[in-house]
């Protein structure tokens, strides 16, 4: 989707957002510290905040009121309607469709007939997301939808979001404090600072020094005890006993080591020949996309130079089985 946004918002508090963003992205990240104007920019996109021109795929929607803009707007608080069951929350939008499908994709099928107050924090976030997706929006707008969840639940929700967004082919804008949190799910990003655009480009390019916790979300099929097939490679990974079929997995990019030759003796269980299909600068580091397993590796610039990493280079990827987290079944 093509985004052309001119946001000009002045607050009584003295805060001013003056941001102009033009870019093409399937999913766009907005990152920056608290008070940098991320949520305000998202509100301009949604039409909640007047004071800007917004055009999506070349169509000017600036004067389209919120209820006709078809944006799935998900806030930090899930804001489920407390007087409706989860199912009726998901069916709330007049154009909602495929409620059970969406609920399955986000792992909340079992709680559809409960009232929101009987849901856990993670379930509430996923239900709010499901409600937005079921409303058949043209664009998902997510304002730190998983903030406040613990790491395990956050990664679980992120991987479900990743899965659902692909499955329903939805463009999205994802707001987060941390660039590292959005890189796994977005292909372009805007970094805001003090209400101004500080950087815009491929999401890895807006990373800051020291930001390393970049996640890789991928799926695989359980083919044996602690063995998961991803594409045409088998990975050793700890999957709970009794789990079969397709599973969602994740590993951090800094846990994926690269070498130019196979180490003779090493404790890591996954040592695989692969190829670099993409090399992009990421803050002080370099993010290397690998062909198989389908993950990215974050290494220092110095290491990249030493190994001569470039697109098309054959490399050995080394990944401990324990670095791969099982996040749940894939639908």
């Amino acid at each position, binding site marked *: 989707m093509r985004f052309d946004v001119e946001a000009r918002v002045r607050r009584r508090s003295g805060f001013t957002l003056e941001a102009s963003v033009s870019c093409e992205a399937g999913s766009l990240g907005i990152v920056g510290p608290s008070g940098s104007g991320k949520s305000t920019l998202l509100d301009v996109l949604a039409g909640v905040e007047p004071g800007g021109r917004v055009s999506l795929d070349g169509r000017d929607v600036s004067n389209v009121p919120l209820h006709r*803009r078809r944006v*799935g707007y998900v806030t930090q*608080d899930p804001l489920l309607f*407390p007087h409706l069951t989860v199912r009726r929350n998901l069916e*709330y939008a*007049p154009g909602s469709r495929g409620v059970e499908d969406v609920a399955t994709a986000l792992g909340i099928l079992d709680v559809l007939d409960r009232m929101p107050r009987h849901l856990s924090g993670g379930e509430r976030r996923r239900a709010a997301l499901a409600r937005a997706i079921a409303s058949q929006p043209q664009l998902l707008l997510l304002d730190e939808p998983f903030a406040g969840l613990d790491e395990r639940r956050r990664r679980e929700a992120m991987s479900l979001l990743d899965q659902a967004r692909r499955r329903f082919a939805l463009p999205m804008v994802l707001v987060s404090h941390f660039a590292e949190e959005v890189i796994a799910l977005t292909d372009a990003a805007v970094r805001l600072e003090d209400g101004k655009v500080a950087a815009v480009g491929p999401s890895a390019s807006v990373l800051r020094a020291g930001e390393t916790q970049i996640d890789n979300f991928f799926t695989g099929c359980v083919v044996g005890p602690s063995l998961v097939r991803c594409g045409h490679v088998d990975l050793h990974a700890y999957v709970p006993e009794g789990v079969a079929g397709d599973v969602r997995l994740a590993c951090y990019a800094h846990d994926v080591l690269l070498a130019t030759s196979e180490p003779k003796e090493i404790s890591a269980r996954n040592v695989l020949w692969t190829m670099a299909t993409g090399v992009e600068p990421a803050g002080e580091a370099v993010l290397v996309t690998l062909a198989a397993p389908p993950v990215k590796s974050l290494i220092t610039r110095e290491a990249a130079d030493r190994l001569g990493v470039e697109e098309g280079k054959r490399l050995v990827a080394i990944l401990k089985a324990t670095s791969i987290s099982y996040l749940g079944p894939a639908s």
Partner: protein
Amino acid sequence: MSPILLSLTVGLTATAISLPPGILVSWILERTRWPGRGLLHVLVLLPLVLPPVVTGYLLLKTFSPNAGLGSFLQGAGMPVAFHWLGAVVAAAVVGFPLLVLSVTLSMKAIDPRMEIVSRSLGRSPGSTFWRVTLPLSWPGILAGSVLSFARGLGEFGATIIVAGRLPRETETIPLAIYSAMEVPGGEERIGVLVAASFILCVAAVFAARALDSWHRRRLELNR
């Protein structure tokens, strides 16, 4: 009509007719921002702080057959002054601030972003009000209705000015008690009327509790 039945009719009618404008005014006060809002707020609260007799006098001036509105209503077959409808108007006006205070309080408790989310899901502002704001304001509407009903039941000052004290026509419980106190040997009648007031008010509170728990049960059933 007996004072007890009259009071009940007046209280219920007054509450019923003040509910729609009460909810609308609450929404305007709570969810809109415009220059005259403060003035509207003061105007709505005025009957709460004005002496009821003053409110009654102003109402009488408005609704007397010599005034524009009064003569229009008289012509339309709805005389207000010195008619039981006058007691209804007095009760409604005096109870209105209590209703609005309750409803605004429960609307204030609804996160406005809940309404924004509803609109982002494709529901117009009107539909959002109907589906989100109104159901979530239910406790305040209920509490406000009981307060306004009870206040109407006890209305004296404004009623005696607007509706007069016509036995069997505008003599509500408080007025009837006042009349009985002027009559020697009216003690027994006063006792009945006091007991009736007590029962009506307690019944109103119980009815509100029952409605509220019915509403909650309806939510629980869907669990």
